[in-house]
């Protein structure tokens, strides 16, 4: 009896103790819930309402959607492949349809591992918890945040059906490469709607949210496939697919949407465009305003440019003996502008956007070298009355500089070749003659010409500016050269034609305005000289590569071969190509010979221009009415009836056609003495 009483007492003690424990736990639990509930975020009704926002869309010049930014549009569950839904449930939360927001056993297990196995952190978030986290919380990991996330998950479950939760989840989940929501991811990676996803594709996408960057199939296809196989195995284990389906799906190599990879090359362009839009309208409008932006980019030309740049830089690697495994490779940038309007057709700011987002096309300020000489020659023609037939002497030059050592410019070949007309001096890129000219015309005049052509970077008023020692960007140089392509007419370069709001109401339109900034006849004389650069001079590799249209341009190679440029144009398209190292290392080939713009940038330019203009009719530059041509002996600058040769014949005479204005005559007395 006593024993029974003892047992009863013992039992009663445990009963009370249990009740107290439960009551205490309940009180603590309630306190925590009440405490945390105060500043929990409000949930929208329905849940998907706040996910659905108008997207800002950016279009290419042909109307193709380049990218969508900001928030996204939801699609209903019945517009998503069942394979994807199964895959995401199997991978992320296979008990999704059974729990009420929390998988308690998994949570306890994860808690145990996190607390007692040092160095290991186990996650146990259900789909509902992930949704709560993605919608309302930052990614900062704290216990308080985790508890709040858990409470919100419970409320989501209490207020929504499983279908509504799943619908919200798959429409907001991030898959990488700018794709948020399954529909966008499906179109981004496979170029099809989410409804048309097949099992291997669906499984690949379902594997991405775990680590969108590490499994990005464009960059790490092997990793993405390994991850996909894990998803498939999980689907088989859970029973969504049979072993046969699992084995068959594993053998399929998913074909990624290649056009999208081409438009990814527009990323540098998009970065520049979005920066401009933010400057004009602010971040809220750009990322959340649902605006439509009609950009100037030509996706076909952009694709050609990407291929030409990649090919050219790979050749440069080979030339320099740089292997794939080397950590540092030369970089490049290419910008192409429609001369007739200023519309930027192509803008690529580097070798690979995903390896370096630094936009060298607009943010890399580099010396243009001889690429600056057209501004010098225009200034001399305009201010000193010089012209392409003016004779000057290639000789050692020492120019005194106030408060600094004398300037002794050297020619590229370190040799001096005596008298020559200026047309030859430009195509041979003779530095000593450029130095003599800048001494006479003054650096301010040269800079002024560059300024009115649209160069906006700071330019130093020093003699060496004639040889391109002031930094500019490829974008600026391409833009400034279009003024020559238009024989003196400036069109401001621009990246977008029109901006509309979500309802199609126009909020901005670009108007193409012409501004005459250079004398057309003088501009033509400079263009004619630049044509000879391609025909006979440092850019002649362009002709060898098969580009035979009328075109003009100028190479640029800076001291110690740190930058190699070619900027050139036809009457319709102006393109600038820059190559070099970010850290200003020397470009030298395997034989330790420096690499010039003619060797590295000009082939890229030619390859691109051949493709870009293949369907356009061939056009030459219009000759102003007041221009006539005469043939000149390049040494004497005197008129000759010999055929144009552009190289010295057996009698050591070279003949070039020279464009002259009415008041200009070859072999004038003043010319013999120098103007």
């Amino acid at each position: 009896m006593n024993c029974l009483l003892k047992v009863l007492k013992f039992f009663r003690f445990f009963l009370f103790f249990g009740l107290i424990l439960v009551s205490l736990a309940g009180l603590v639990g309630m306190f925590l819930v009440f405490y945390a509930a105060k500043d929990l975020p409000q949930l929208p009704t329905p849940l998907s309402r706040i996910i659905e926002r108008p997207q800002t869309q950016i279009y290419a010049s042909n109307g193709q959607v380049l990218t969508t930014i900001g928030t996204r549009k939801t699609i209903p569950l019945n517009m998503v492949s069942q394979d994807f839904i199964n895959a995401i449930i199997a991978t992320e939360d296979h008990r999704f349809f059974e729990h009420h927001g929390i998988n308690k056993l998994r949570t306890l297990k994860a808690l145990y591992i996190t607390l007692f196995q040092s160095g290991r952190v186990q996650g146990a978030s259900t789909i509902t918890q992930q949704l709560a986290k993605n919608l309302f919380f930052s990614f900062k990991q704290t216990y308080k945040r985790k508890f709040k996330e858990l409470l919100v998950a419970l409320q989501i479950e209490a207020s929504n059906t499983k279908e509504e939760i799943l619908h919200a989840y798959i429409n907001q989940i991030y898959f990488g490469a700018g794709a948020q929501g399954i529909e966008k991811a499906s179109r981004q990676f496979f170029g099809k709607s989410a409804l048309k996803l097949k099992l291997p594709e669906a499984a690949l996408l379902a594997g991405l949210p775990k680590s969108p960057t590490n499994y990005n199939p464009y960059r790490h296809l092997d990793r993405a496939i390994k991850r996909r196989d894990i998803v498939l195995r999980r689907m088989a284990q859970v029973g969504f697919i049979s072993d046969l389906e699992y084995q068959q799906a594993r053998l399929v190599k998913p074909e990624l949407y290649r056009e999208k990879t081409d438009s990814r090359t527009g990323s540098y362009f998009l970065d520049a465009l979005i920066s401009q839009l933010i400057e004009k309208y602010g971040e809220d409008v750009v990322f959340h305003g649902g605006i439509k932006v009609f950009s100037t980019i030509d996706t076909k030309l952009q694709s050609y440019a990407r291929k030409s740049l990649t090919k050219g830089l790979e050749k440069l690697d080979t030339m320099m003996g740089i292997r794939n495994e080397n950590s540092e490779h030369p970089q490049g940038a290419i910008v192409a502008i429609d001369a007739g309007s200023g519309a930027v057709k192509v803008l690529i700011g580097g070798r690979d956007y995903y390896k370096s987002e630094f936009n060298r096309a607009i943010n890399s300020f580099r010396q243009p070298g001889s690429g600056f000489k057209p501004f010098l020659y225009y200034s001399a023609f305009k201010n000193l009355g010089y012209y392409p037939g003016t004779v000057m002497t290639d000789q050692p030059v020492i120019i005194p500089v106030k408060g600094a050592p004398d300037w002794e410019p050297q020619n590229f070949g370190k040799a001096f070749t005596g008298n020559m007309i200026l047309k030859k001096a430009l195509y041979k890129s003779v530095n000593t003659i450029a130095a003599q000219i800048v001494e006479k015309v003054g650096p301010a005049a040269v800079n002024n010409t560059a300024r009115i052509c649209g160069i906006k970077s700071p330019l130093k008023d020093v003699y060496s500016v004639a040889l391109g020692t002031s930094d500019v960007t490829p974008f600026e140089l391409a833009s400034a050269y279009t003024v020559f392509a238009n024989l003196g007419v400036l069109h401001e370069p621009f990246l977008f034609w029109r901006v509309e709001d979500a309802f199609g109401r126009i909020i901005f339109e670009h108007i193409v305005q012409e501004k005459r900034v250079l004398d057309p006849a003088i501009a033509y004389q400079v263009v004619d000289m630049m044509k000879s650069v391609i025909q006979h001079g440092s850019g002649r590799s362009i002709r060898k590569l098969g580009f035979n249209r009328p075109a003009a341009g100028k190479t640029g190679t800076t001291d110690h071969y740190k930058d190699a440029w070619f900027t050139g144009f036809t009457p319709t398209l102006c393109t600038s190509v820059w190559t070099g190292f970010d850290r200003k290392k020397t470009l030298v080939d395997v034989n330790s010979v420096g690499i010039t713009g003619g060797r590295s940038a000009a082939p890229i330019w030619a390859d691109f221009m051949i493709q870009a203009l293949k369907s356009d009719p061939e056009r030459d530059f219009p000759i102003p009415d007041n221009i006539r041509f005469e043939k000149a002996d390049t040494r004497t600058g005197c008129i000759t009836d010999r055929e144009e040769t552009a190289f010295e014949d057996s009698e050591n005479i070279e003949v070039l056609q020279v464009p002259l204005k009415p008041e200009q005559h070859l072999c004038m007395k003043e010319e013999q003495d120098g103007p």
Partner: protein
Amino acid sequence: MITATFLVSELRFDWFENLVGSYLASTNEFRPQTGVIWEAGKHTTNAHEYLNKIINKKEDTQHNVHKASSFLNLISDILPGEWVTLEKNHFQTLYLTLEKSMADKIIEPAQLVWLLKGSMLDRIFCEGIPGGIKIYFIDSENRVIKQIDFEKQFILEIESAQQAVTGEFSEIEEFSGRIYTAENFFDAVFKLPPDILPDLIVNPEILLAQAGKIINIGIWNVSQNGYIKLGFEFEEQGAKKIVFIKGREWAVWQLSLYLQGGEN
């Protein structure tokens, strides 16, 4: 055992989760709209407000420009930084209201004929600049075919010059029988509903720019392009001149009804 029972029952029936979830759902509307997604929503609201402001401003300007009856109105309606499109017919109407010699100063008639009837003109685009407007004649590719810069002062001079003549009403037959003293005229004017007044005296700047005092006002006997000419006789140091402005036909007729009861 009770604790165990509670725990097991919770694991089995998830009653605690449901309870907490339902409680939180009941307090939902009293909680703040905070968190990543709500922030995004606020950004969207800001963006839409900003865009609507731009659009509304533009639509207001467009509406005013649509009503402009002179280039001076046009300049006054478009502030620096604003831009609107102008219908070709509207430009033509404004141009034709100017005296020929004055219109030539803006654009040669032959060039206007080419622009409006012979070129690839698609639209006329007006942009406000400090002290005036720029008018761009643009083709379907948004290229400027012709650009005219209008300075307010220049237009004011043109419109004033064409509208001022030295002399008296007795010398102008078209005003015969419709000449009123300034007192009677303005008495009648202020009896009109206020919203009519801007259409009656469309270009007050022209009158305000004159020296002297208004002594008589005459109403022209013919309407032209929906307007009727009003003559204001100014007297300054014994010299008289008549300044013409235009009033919308319907507004002038309304005024005439009031004036008919007064002396003339």
